[in-house]
């Protein structure tokens, strides 16, 4: 008999969210087959069965969170079923998981104390998608009556939405963005940059603009280390390596895979890695380690027609770069001549507690210059082995 426990994907993971079971209770599973999908605050993964046997008991429920190490299922031989049941009842008696975290349903509540509601009240609650547990009963013995539901409806306008349980990823996003919003003092500097040259160069090298930007950015971050740092527990850690977080839009929400040691990579390497990372982010195939330890994050909404936006920090980082749409514009160049140039806005958001406005302006200026005249940097296009 083998207990399947809530796994730990990364250093910081302390609880996991069961997205769905891929096997049913009683099914035979082979070693190496996927058992269930678990998401942590960062990632969702399929859990593989380490042994062959019957899935005797499923204890962990879909949509619920359990602490790392909690038994969520038992695999074994059929004759071990009784023992498995016993184990499960022991797990239940321990009640160690985080029940308070999820939204209780009427059924959960009625397990503790039955909700007394009249048939009419129940019908109305059904029709209006109201949880009876939210309604105060005014009838004899606290029975919820139709009047109670109607008065509840009067005070709570009729729902025209449906309540969706939050995924693990969304919870993480909420947590981190709230943290960023409430702790950092974010300011954004914006400048319009001429991408004509960079575009030309990247095209020559058969890589994307983003690759070009990352290449240029990593070189600058190595020099302006304050922008390549973490601020945590009143400590500022300035890094000697550049790990670029890439904000990737996936159908499960925003993911930020990390391109490690970007400063050591040449254009081609960067190009390959970002394609790999973003495509695996979209297909939910990232490893836990690939989501940690970015030192600076970029987010590009240009391909979706956004020209200008103010990104929010990815804590504990202190700066983030937003890239807008590159678009041809008439520009004044070389002594008052008008020329068509490929222009885009760069927005640098930064934690004003750490970075002064002038520093930010300087950083953005250097970055803009490097993009507008990338040759000196690109000539030295090679990775460090």
């Amino acid at each position: 008999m083998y207990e399947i426990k809530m796994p730990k994907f990364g250093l910081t993971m302390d609880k996991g969210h069961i997205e769905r079971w891929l096997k049913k209770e009683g099914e035979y599973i082979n070693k190496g087959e996927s058992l269930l999908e678990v998401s942590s605050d960062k990632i969702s993964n399929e859990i593989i069965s380490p042994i062959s046997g019957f899935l005797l008991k499923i204890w962990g429920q879909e949509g619920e969170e359990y602490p790392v190490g909690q038994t969520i299922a038992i695999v074994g031989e059929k004759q071990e079923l009784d023992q498995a049941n016993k184990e499960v009842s022991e797990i239940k008696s321990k009640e160690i998981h985080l029940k308070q975290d999820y939204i209780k349903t009427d059924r959960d509540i009625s397990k503790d104390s039955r909700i007394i509601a009249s048939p009419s009240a129940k019908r109305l609650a059904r029709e209006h998608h109201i949880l009876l547990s939210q309604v105060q009963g005014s009838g004899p013995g606290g029975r919820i009556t139709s009047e109670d539901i109607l008065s509840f409806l009067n005070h709570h306008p009729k729902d025209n939405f449906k309540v969706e349980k939050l995924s693990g990823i969304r919870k993480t996003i909420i947590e981190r963005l709230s943290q960023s919003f409430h702790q950092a003092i974010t300011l954004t500097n914006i400048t319009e940059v001429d991408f004509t040259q960079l575009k030309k160069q990247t095209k020559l090298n058969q890589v994307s603009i983003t690759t070009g930007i990352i290449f240029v950015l990593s070189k600058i971050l190595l020099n302006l280390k304050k922008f390549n740092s973490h601020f945590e527990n009143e400590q500022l850690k300035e890094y000697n390596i550049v790990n670029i977080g890439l904000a990737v839009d996936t159908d499960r929400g925003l993911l930020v895979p990390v391109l490690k040691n970007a400063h050591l990579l040449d254009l081609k390497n960067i190009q390959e890695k970002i394609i790999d990372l973003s495509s695996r982010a979209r297909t939910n195939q990232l490893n836990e380690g690939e989501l940690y330890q970015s030192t600076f994050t970029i987010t590009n909404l240009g391909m979706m027609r956004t020209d200008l936006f103010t990104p929010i920090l990815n804590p504990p980082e202190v700066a983030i770069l937003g890239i807008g749409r590159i678009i041809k514009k008439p520009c004044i160049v070389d002594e008052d001549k008008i020329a068509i140039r490929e222009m885009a806005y760069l927005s640098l958001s930064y934690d004003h507690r750490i970075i002064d406005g002038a520093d930010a302006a300087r950083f953005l200026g250097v970055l803009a210059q490097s993009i507008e005249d990338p040759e000196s940097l690109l000539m030295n296009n090679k990775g460090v082995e």
Partner: protein
Amino acid sequence: MRNISYAEALGEAILEEMERDDTIFTYGEDVAKQGGIFGAYKSLLGKFPNRIFDTPISEEVIYGSALGAALVGMRPVVEFHFADFLFTGIQSITLQIEKIRYMTGGQGKLHLVLRGPDGVSNSAAAQHSESIETIFMHIPGIKIIIPSTPYDIKGLMKTALRSDDPIICFEHKSLYATKGEVPEEEYFIPLGKAEIKKEGKDITVVSMSRMVHESLRAAEELEKEGISLEVIDLRSLVPWDKETVIRSVQKTNRLIVAHETWRRAGWGAEIASTIQEEAFDFLDAPIARIGARNVPMPFNALMQNFVTPNKENIIIEAKKLLGR
């Protein structure tokens, strides 16, 4: 509009129909010379001496003869003296009148009316106080009307006298002398059509006969306390107006069924059961049944009043349903 008594309205209905239709005749104990022991036929005294007559105390024949007379084309109206005495001739009703059309594959029209007094009156005791309408609701084959007002008894009796089916009419002893508005012009009240006597929003009270008046009194008192009763008079029990009751319960979400007959297995149980089957999702409270305590009617007035339901029972039950 003129005010006449329940007995007068009943007499008018029979008289008008006798004048129109000479197949109608009426008989029973103490009807012709005395006008009925509770005065039901007072207004018929001296009218149609050949078609209104007194009979021997032979209940099995009195009820059974109504069937025979109907089969040869007449429309007999038979008074049963006291509802209690329906039992002395019960086979003529339950085994003959209620079954013969069905048993013969739909032959014949049993246009006959059995009518008479029922209910509690001053210390009439156990053999003269019964309300036994439920028994006739239970056994298929006869229609039941139970009018509560002069207007209703005239309209319903006139309908009954033109019906081709057997009908039994229960008239509460305490109602004969009550007065009410009855128009001069002819009108009919169909069977199976309840009347909402008073609209309300908190609790529906379904009742008939004397209990309609008790319900209205209870409603009046409860109104002062902010409780609004909707009072429905079914008027006929077979068929009964399910739709009106369901519509009302859909509005009030609470139901009390109040009758004078015994609470245990009284017709209120049938109404309650039907409503929980067909309007379960509209109920905010259990359906309350009000009826007499399950004993024969005692003689002593204190005991009689104790076992007989009245407006107080309705008030108590209404408050209980609302948790007050």
